[in-house]
């Protein structure tokens, strides 16, 4: 009991220390930035204090920030879940069946060369100017990465493990469920982390280009351009940066709790 307590204390201590080390540079840069913009050295560069004021105003006084955030998060979650589901499904089929792999691999490698943002005009034409387009862009942003990571994962499962499973009398389904699926997690979980980054970027880009949506962090920046409100743009950028970082850290945490903890990959 004492031992676990001590471990917990240690963990909290190192986490705190790492967070502090991470935040420290910002504590140096932000005052510096404040001084530069107060002295008006660069035109149209809002000071951090002004951005913070804007944040308070938008978050509490006119209460639009939460709506922007909810709009973005809702699209991200739906698109990302679709990407994970279909990505794992297609990746598994391609990984397991040689014929399907032969058919889909050329098409996939052609489609993956198209930047997600370039799909947006096509989606705007086919799906309309609203939510569907943004969700589809989020989906496309993550889908290919996840598919590839599953294919790669299944192909690199240790052949001895597969043979051992077969010798032990595992049927096709059992083999997939107990050998191939856990084995491919090594590549799938880092793939999920990459994919959420791509999805997040696609989300912001698509929100800026889709005309019919009202809420969303990307939309917030884009509408600020119409009225030239630099503070709102910077606030949007800060939110996008922090949210992107948090999403990445969340998936990194999952990575540590699963494949790293199980000893399937060494800490990077």
């Amino acid at each position, binding site marked *: 009991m004492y031992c676990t307590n001590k471990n917990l204390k240690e963990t909290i201590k190192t986490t705190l220390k790492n967070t502090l080390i991470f935040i420290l540079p910002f504590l140096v840069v932000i005052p510096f930035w404040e001084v530069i913009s107060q002295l008006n050295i660069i035109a149209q560069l809002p000071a951090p204090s002004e951005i913070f004021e804007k944040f308070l105003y938008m978050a509490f006084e006119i209460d639009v920030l939460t709506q922007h955030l909810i709009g973005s998060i809702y699209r991200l979650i739906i698109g990302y879940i679709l990407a994970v589901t279909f990505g794992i499904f297609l990746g598994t089929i391609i990984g397991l069946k040689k014929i399907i792999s032969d058919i889909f691999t050329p098409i996939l490698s052609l489609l993956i060369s198209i930047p997600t*943002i*370039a799909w947006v*005009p*096509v989606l705007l034409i086919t799906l309309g100017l609203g939510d569907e387009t943004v969700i589809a862009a989020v989906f496309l942003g993550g889908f290919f990465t996840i598919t590839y990571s599953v294919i790669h994962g299944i192909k690199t499962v240790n052949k001895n493990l597969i043979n051992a499973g077969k010798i032990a009398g595992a049927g096709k389904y059992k083999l997939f469920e107990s050998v191939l699926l856990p084995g491919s997690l090594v590549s799938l979980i880092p793939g999920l982390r990459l994919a959420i980054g791509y999805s997040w970027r696609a989300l912001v880009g698509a929100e800026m280009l889709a005309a019919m949506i009202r809420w969303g962090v990307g939309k917030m920046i884009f509408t600020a351009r119409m009225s030239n409100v*630099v503070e709102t743009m910077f606030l949007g950028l800060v939110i996008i940066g922090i949210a992107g970082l948090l999403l990445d850290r969340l998936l990194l945490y999952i990575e540590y709790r699963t494949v790293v903890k199980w000893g399937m990959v060494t800490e990077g």
Partner: protein
Amino acid sequence: MDFRKKIGSFLAITIILLFFFIWELFSNYEIIQIALFSKPSLIFGEILENSIEIIAHLLVTLYRLVLSFFIAMFIGIFFGMIMGYSRYVYRFFNPLITTLMAIPGIAMAPVFIIWFGFGDPTILSIGIIVAFFPIVYNSAIGVRSIDKNHVNAAKIMGANKKHLFLKVYLPHSFTYIIIGIKLGLARCWRTVIAVEFIAATGFGLGYWIWDAYEYLNVTIVYTGIIILAIVFFTIEKVIIREVEKRTIDKWGVLHEQES
């Protein structure tokens, strides 16, 4: 092995042609609407008819890509080396870089439009910023991952700082730098296209596609996207592959993964 490779690429081309054929067939029998999905024969006609215009757009985009990418590469490798060299510089800049890296380039476009106006300055500076982060990040990791014994061995044999940098640090971190360059180039390409959507003034593939979209000219939109796919496929599979063959593979730093 070579024979199998040939069959593989033959099969790939057949399947892509088949894909286009089915697409054509579907639009001819009106299973999918031409107004929404266009059709391959129209796209092919578009390419033949406006090939000079397309090449002009392509060249402008490539010029933006190459210029911003090379500037980002030089600054990125140089700065990454310094970051890898000194622990304190690394500790200071790493959090800033990881945070800024999470911001997509297109989101910066409105701010840069206010600063620099529409056109090349905005597109180029966002391209530089976006390509810079992966390169600097990976170069720093590359330098940090060097075996200290190699450095000490070189020092014992009397290498000065210049030799140490050119003969030890640079070649050793090259694997990582190449990874950074690949990521940076891909991000730069995507971002240049995206920023061209909203900030270009007359030329560039992104501008061409977006302009066609605003007039609901579906055929040009699809043509543009197919050209984007072909160009990036070529950059990645031919040019980058060739660079890797001549450097990393030759030096035997990275072992080719059999897939």
